[in-house]
């Protein structure tokens, strides 16, 4: 059996304009700096049970700045 896959979120800092949608739909997965721009919390790993939130963060970002990567 292969290892269960890990999901990670990542924010492309060049695209993020601080709309705050990712943080609003998945508060634990993202952190904001003092200007309101986002980055992934910690190493970006998505804890079990938050997969849907991660995908909503991606599909609600108006700048297409959120990626969800399967490892």
């Amino acid at each position: 059996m292969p290892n269960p896959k890990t999901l990670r979120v990542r924010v492309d800092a060049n695209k993020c304009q601080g709309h705050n949608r990712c943080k609003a739909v998945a508060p634990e997965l993202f952190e904001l700096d003092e200007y309101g721009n986002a980055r992934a919390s910690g190493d970006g790993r998505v804890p079990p049970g938050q997969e849907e939130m991660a995908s909503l963060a991606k599909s609600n970002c108006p700048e297409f700045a959120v990626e969800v990567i399967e490892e």
Partner: protein
Amino acid sequence: MAGRPPVKDWSTDFDHLDPAWVADPFPIWDEMRKTCPIAHTERFNGVYFASRYADVRAVAYDTEHFSSRRVVVRETPPPRIPAPPITSDPPEHRAARMVLLPPFTADAIKKLEPRARALCNELIDSFVGRGGCDAAVEYAQEIPTRLIAHMMDLPEGDGDLYRKWIHEILEVGITDQRVLMQAVGDMTRYFAAAVEQRKQQPGDDLISYLLHARFNGEPMTSDNVLGCLRLLLIAGIDTTWSGIGSSIWHLARTPQDRRRLVAEPGLVPIAVEELLRAYAPVTMAREVVKQTSINGCTFEPGQMVLLSFPAACRDPEVFPNAEKVVIDRKENRHAAFGLGIHRCVGSNLARMELMVAVEELVKRIPEFCLDGEVTWSEGTVRGPRKLPLRFH
């Protein structure tokens, strides 16, 4: 405006001030998206209109060919009154924007929520006993005016003055330059007095924050501070007023959505995003500064482009059932607050105001309907200006 020549054809002769467009622009945009996604008119000295999300996005992202030095389409080009960051392009834009961002982050705005809630309830108290109200005049327009005054630690009752200036600058000022300059002067003097006072007695307010902020590493000049204050006042009031008004208008006509929000207040944040999408209030503009082409259409320098975030938000290629309000829409990349580097600085404030305004209204007055003629504003910001309601 009276006496505008009738529109011959929406693809080649559109007029965003035409009564049909002002009353119900959505079918016009749906048609344009199918037949002529980038329309052009000779009116207003030449304007393009993009109705697809992808094209609106392409224009918003392309600051090299499309400049923000003119962001409003008018009959005649007005005197240029720079209002950074909204009228700036890179590289100047960034510094002006960075100054404004910290006091408007989601965390900073969260602290204002209790005041917003109390304020909404004070307004509701004033009309709930009458069995009806004009929700545009007595509710929607009061919320952003009083809250921005609160943030600046100015008298909340000065709201009438703010709306008078905004009306003179954004509407009367289009044709009457004297009124425009007078209003800008009055506003500047009003803020200058407050700035002097905050220099003596700094507080925990937005004006004191700006006085201590740094711009490109240097302290802000009084002129910078006054420019920021003018912009925040002008950008934050009509826009949020329109967003709140359109949301209430929808809920007054759609009992099933209203009842759902009464039963599930937790749905309000998602509902507010959908109402922002469906009734996005703000259409900006850009000036073409270098020839370029997008989606097969050539843009000529000197002409304007209407940057219709509202039309982008209704593009069925990006939003399934785009023409419907789906009150629990989960995937919603809407562009009501713009796209790219000019993303609305006040979006967290506006969202909070919208959520609180809707939540408190349906909590206190769960059953209401329209009660008379609704009128809509025209031009840059679209929303109800008269919204008579009857409560059940």
